[in-house]
C-alpha cells in the first residue's frame, strides 16, 4: 500500500476534481485546490523516494528509478496547474474536467514509469493517452477551430502508434514467450544480432514511445497539436509525456544490451533525422508554439543521443537533459500563456517589445530560450555537455559533429525569439501587470534553470542511484 502512495495521491487529486466538476467551484478556488493536492502529491512522491518493492505479480516495480520519475512527473503537473492561473484558454464550465483529465493523464505517466511488463506498459500508456485525447480539443470556441483538428490528429496518430507498439510486442512475445522485462533482458541481447525480426519488433515497440517523445519518424503530430491545443495544454503535452517516454525508453533500450550494433544504428539515424528536421523546420515558423513543437522534435533527437549510448552515463545525461528540458520548455510556455490573456496563439509580432511591457517575462523567455539553445550557465548547456561527453566516450564522433551543427542551426531561431522580445518597437501594447504568484513562478524558472545548470552534482548523484537501480 505504501509503495503505491504517490499514485494514490494523484488519484485522490483526480477524485477531488471529479467532485469539483459536480459542484460549481471554478476559477481561483479550483486552481487553489489543484495546487494544494498536486503539491501534496509532490511531497508524497518525495517521501516515498527510496522505497523498493514489487506489486501486481511483479508487473509493477517500485525502485529508485521509477521514484525519481514520479517526483519529476508530480512536480511537472504541479507547475502546469500552478501556471494555468485562470485557464485563459479553457471554457469556464469545463475547467474542473480539464484539471481532472490533466491529473489522470499524469497518473498514467506515473504508473508507466513503474511498469516492467509489456502489457502493463501498454495499459499505462493508454490511461495517459486517453485522458490526453479528451483535453486536447478543450479550447474556448471563438476564432479558432484548429483544436478539433489537433484533437483528431492526436487521437488517430496516437491510436496508430499504440497499434504499432502492440504489433511489436506480438513479435517479441512470439519469439521469447514472455512479456516481463526482467526475463526479456536475459533473452534479447543473445538473439537481437542473429534474428532481424527481434530488431524489428523492438523498434516497433519503441515506436509508441517515439510518438510520445515526438521523435522522428513519429513526430508529425507535434506542430499541429501544439498549435491547435490551448496554450496550457500545449505546455503539458510538450513536457510531461516526454519525461514518461524517456523513462520507458531507458527501460526498453537497456533490454537490447550494450553491443547491439544495428539497433544503435537505427536509433542514431532517428536521432540525427529528428534533430535536423526539427531544427530546419523551426527556422521558418512564425507561430511560437509551432516553433517550440519543432524545437521539441529536435530536442527529442538530443535526448536520444544520450539514450542510444546505452551506458550508465548516457542514461544519466538523458534523465538530466529531459528534466532540464521540462523546466526550460515550461518556462517558454509560461511566457506564452501569460502573453495571451484570451488564450490566443502567440507569434513573433506579439513578442516584440516584450521587455518594455514586462521585463520579468522577457527575462524568463530569454533564460528559457538560451537554455534550450544550450548557452551556459543554464541547465541546457550542462545537459548538452553531459550528452556529448557520453556519446564521445562511445566514440560516436560523427553523431556528435552532426549534433553540434544542429545546435548551431538551433541557436538562430532561439535567438530570434529573444531578439523579438528585446527589440523596441513603438508598440501600442500596454504594460503587462503580472500577479504576484505569476512573478514568483517566473523568478523560480529563472533561478532553477541557472542553479541546476551551475550545480548539477546533487541531481546527478540522485539520478545515478536511480539508473543503477534500473540496470
Amino acid at each position, binding site marked *: 500500500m505504501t509503495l503505491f502512495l504517490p499514485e494514490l495521491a494523484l488519484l485522490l487529486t483526480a477524485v477531488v476534481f471529479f467532485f469539483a466538476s459536480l459542484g460549481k467551484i471554478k476559477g481561483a478556488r479550483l486552481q487553489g485546490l489543484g495546487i494544494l493536492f498536486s503539491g501534496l502529491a509532490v511531497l508524497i512522491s518525495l517521501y516515498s523516494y527510496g522505497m523498493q518493492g514489487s506489486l501486481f505479480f511483479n508487473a509493477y516495480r517500485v525502485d529508485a528509478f521509477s521514484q525519481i520519475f514520479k517526483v519529476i512527473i508530480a512536480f511537472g503537473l504541479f507547475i502546469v496547474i500552478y501556471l494555468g492561473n485562470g485557464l485563459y484558454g479553457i471554457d469556464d464550465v469545463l475547467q474542473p474536467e480539464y484539471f481532472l483529465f490533466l491529473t489522470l493523464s499524469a497518473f498514467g505517466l506515473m504508473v508507466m514509469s513503474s511498469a516492467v511488463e509489456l502489457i502493463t506498459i501498454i495499459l499505462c500508456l493508454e490511461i495517459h493517452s486517453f485522458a490526453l485525447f479528451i483535453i486536447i480539443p478543450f479550447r474556448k470556441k471563438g476564432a479558432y477551430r484548429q483544436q478539433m483538428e489537433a484533437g483528431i490528429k492526436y487521437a488517430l496518430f496516437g491510436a496508430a502508434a499504440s497499434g504499432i507498439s502492440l504489433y511489436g510486442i506480438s513479435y517479441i512475445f512470439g519469439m521469447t514467450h514472455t512479456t516481463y522485462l526482467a526475463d526479456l533482458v536475459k533473452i534479447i541481447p543473445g538473439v537481437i544480432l542473429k534474428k532481424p525480426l527481434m530488431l524489428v519488433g523492438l523498434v516497433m515497440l519503441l515506436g509508441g514511445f517515439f510518438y510520445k517523445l515526438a521523435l522522428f519518424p513519429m513526430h508529425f503530430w507535434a506542430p499541429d497539436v501544439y498549435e491547435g491545443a490551448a496554450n496550457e495544454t500545449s505546455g503539458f503535452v510538450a513536457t510531461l509525456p516526454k519525461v514518461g517516454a524517456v523513462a520507458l525508453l531507458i527501460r526498453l533500450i537497456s533490454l537490447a544490451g550494450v553491443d547491439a550494433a544495428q539497433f544503435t544504428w537505427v536509433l542514431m539515424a532517428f536521432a540525427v533525422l529528428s534533430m535536423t528536421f526539427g531544427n530546419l523546420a523551426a527556422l521558418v515558423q512564425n507561430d511560437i508554439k509551432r516553433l517550440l513543437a519543432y524545437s521539441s522534435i529536435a530536442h527529442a533527437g538530443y535526448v536520444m543521443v544520450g539514450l542510444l549510448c546505452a551506458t550508465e552515463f548516457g542514461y544519466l545525461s538523458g534523465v538530466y537533459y529531459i528534466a532540464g528540458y521540462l523546466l526550460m520548455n515550461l518556462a517558454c510556455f509560461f511566457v506564452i500563456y501569460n502573453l495571451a490573456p484570451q488564450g490566443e496563439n502567440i507569434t513573433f509580432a506579439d513578442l516584440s517589445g516584450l521587455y518594455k511591457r514586462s521585463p520579468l517575462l522577457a527575462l524568463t523567455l530569454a533564460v528559457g530560450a538560451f537554455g534550450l539553445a544550450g*548557452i551556459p550557465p543554464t541547465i541546457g548547456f550542462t545537459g548538452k555537455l553531459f550528452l556529448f561527453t557520453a556519446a*564521445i566516450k562511445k566514440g560516436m564522433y560523427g553523431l556528435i559533429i552532426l549534433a553540434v551543427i544542429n545546435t548551431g542551426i538551433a541557436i538562430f531561431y532561439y*535567438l530570434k525569439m529573444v531578439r523579438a522580445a528585446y527589440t523596441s518597437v513603438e508598440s501600442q501594447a500596454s504594460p503587462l501587470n503580472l500577479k504576484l504568484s505569476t512573478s514568483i513562478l517566473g523568478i523560480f524558472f529563472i533561478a532553477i534553470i541557472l542553479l541546476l545548470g551551475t*550545480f548539477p*552534482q546533487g541531481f*546527478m548523484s540522485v539520478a545515478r542511484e536511480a539508473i543503477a537501480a534500473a540496470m
Partner: protein
Amino acid sequence: MEQYLIYNSLNYPILTVLVAVPLFGSLITLFIRGDKYLKIWGLVVTLTTAVLSLPLYSNFDLTTAKYQFAEFRNWIPFAKINYVLGVDGISILLVLLTTLVMPLCILCSWTYIKERFKEFICVMLIMEAAMVGVFVSLDTVLFFIFWEAMLVPMYLIIAVWGGPRKDYASIKFFLYTLIGSIFLFVAIIAMYVSTGTFFIPELMAHQFSFSYQMWIFWAFTLAFAIKVPMWPVHTWLPAAHVEAPTAGSVILASILLKMGGYGFLRFCLPIAPAATIYCMPYLIAISIMSIIFGGYLALGQNDVKRLIAYSSVGHMGFVTLGIFLLNDVGIKGAILQMVNHGVTTGALFICVGIIYERTHSREISDNSALGMLMPIYVTFLVIFSLSSLAFPGTNSFVGEFLVLMASFSKYKLVGGLAVIGAILAAAYMLRLVQKMVWADSDGHMHHGEKSHLFDLNFRETGTLAFLAIFVFWIGLNPGPFLKIMDTSTLHLLQQLEDGRKAMPAGHGEYHALLNGVGESIRHLVAFK
C-alpha cells in the same frame, strides 16, 4: 596540482573576488532606483574591483611560470569538473586591463546612455565578471562557461542600447561567435574523453597524436579566429562596433578581441604544439591578410567608428602574426600589442563617443575642423591616433616593433608585407586626424554652432587622461611589462619545443593535399 599551481597567499581569494564583486554588484543594481545612484553604484563596483585587482601586479612572482594566486575547489566531482583559477604572465596583464578599463566604460556612458540605466549597469557588471572569468579560469569547462556567458550581455548591450541597425549587428555578432565556439565545445569534450581531465595544465602536459592535434587545433582556431577577428571571419566586427554604444565598443575593442589572442596562447600553442608548428605558415598568411585588408579597408571609410573597427582588424593581425611567429620576441610583442590595442583603440572609441554625443553623427565630414573649438579633445585625439599608428614614444610602437623585428628575423617576406600594414595605419590615421582636427577650413566652419561643440568636461578629460598615461608609460618604459611575461613566454616556447620533439620526424601522418599546399606556401614564406 602543486606542480602547476601556486596557491593564493593574499588574505583574500583575489581571483574569486574579482569575479564575485561585479556579479554581486549586478544583483544589487536590481534594488537601486534612480539613474544617478545607479551610475555611482556602477562606478563604485568597478573601481572597487580595479583596486582589489592591483595586488595581482605588486605580488606577482616573476620567477615562475606556474599559475599564481590559484584557487582550487571541487565543483562537479562526478564529471571531474573543478573550479580552478590562476593567472600567469600571459593572462595577468589582460586581467588588469579588464579591471582598469571597466570603470572607464561606466564613465564614458555617464551621459551617453539615456534609457534603462538599471539594466545597463547590471549587464555591464555581469560582463565584467565573465571577462575576468575567461582570463583566470584554468578548467576548460569553466573557461567555456565564462566564454559563452559573455555573449548574452554583449548581445544585449548592442541590441538594446545600440544604433539604428542594432538588430542586424547584434545577431551577427552572436551567431558568428557562437558558431565558432560550439566547435571549441566539442574539442573540450573530446580532450576530456581522451585524457580524463578538464584541467588546462594537465591537458598541456598530455601528448596527443598528430592527427588528433590537428582536429583540436582547427576547432580552437576557428573559435579564436572569429573572436580576434582574423580575415576572412572579421565581418561581424565593423557591424558590431558601429552599432554598439560607446561602452560596448570599448569593451569589444579593449577586451573581447583579446580573448582570441589569449585563446591561441593558452590553448592552441601548448595543447597542440605539433599542429601549431605545422599550421604556422597558414596562420601567418591569414594574419598578413588581416593586416593588409584591415588597413586597406580602413582607408576607405567615412564613418569614424567603422574606420577604427577596420583598423582593429589590422592591429589584431599584428597580434596573431606575433603569436604564430613562435619565437620569444614575437609572442611578447603580441601580448604587449594586445594590451596596447586595448588602451589605444579603447581610447579612440571613447573619443568617438564623446564627439557623437555633441554632433550626433559619426561621419568624418560632420566632425571636421574641431581644432579651434575643442582643443583638449583634439589633443587627446592626436595622442591616441599617433599611438594607433605606432608612432615612436607611444605604446603601440613597442609592440609593433617587436612583432616586426621577430618577423624580419624569421621570414623577411613576412616582415616586408607587415610593414605595408604599418604604412597603411599611418595613412588612414593621419587622414582621420587631418580631417577631424584641421580639415581645409579657415577655422570658421562651425561658425554659429559653437553651443554644442563645447570642450571636454572634467569627467571626460579624466577618462582619456588615464589612458593617455598608459600610452606614454608603456611607450617609454616597456621593461616592466615585458618582464612580467618573460618566464611564462619562455615556458610556452619550451612546451612547443617539447611538443615538436615528441613527434616523429616529419610529423608522420597528414593529408596529402594539405601537405602540398603547405609546402608551396612554406617555400613562398621562407623565401629569403
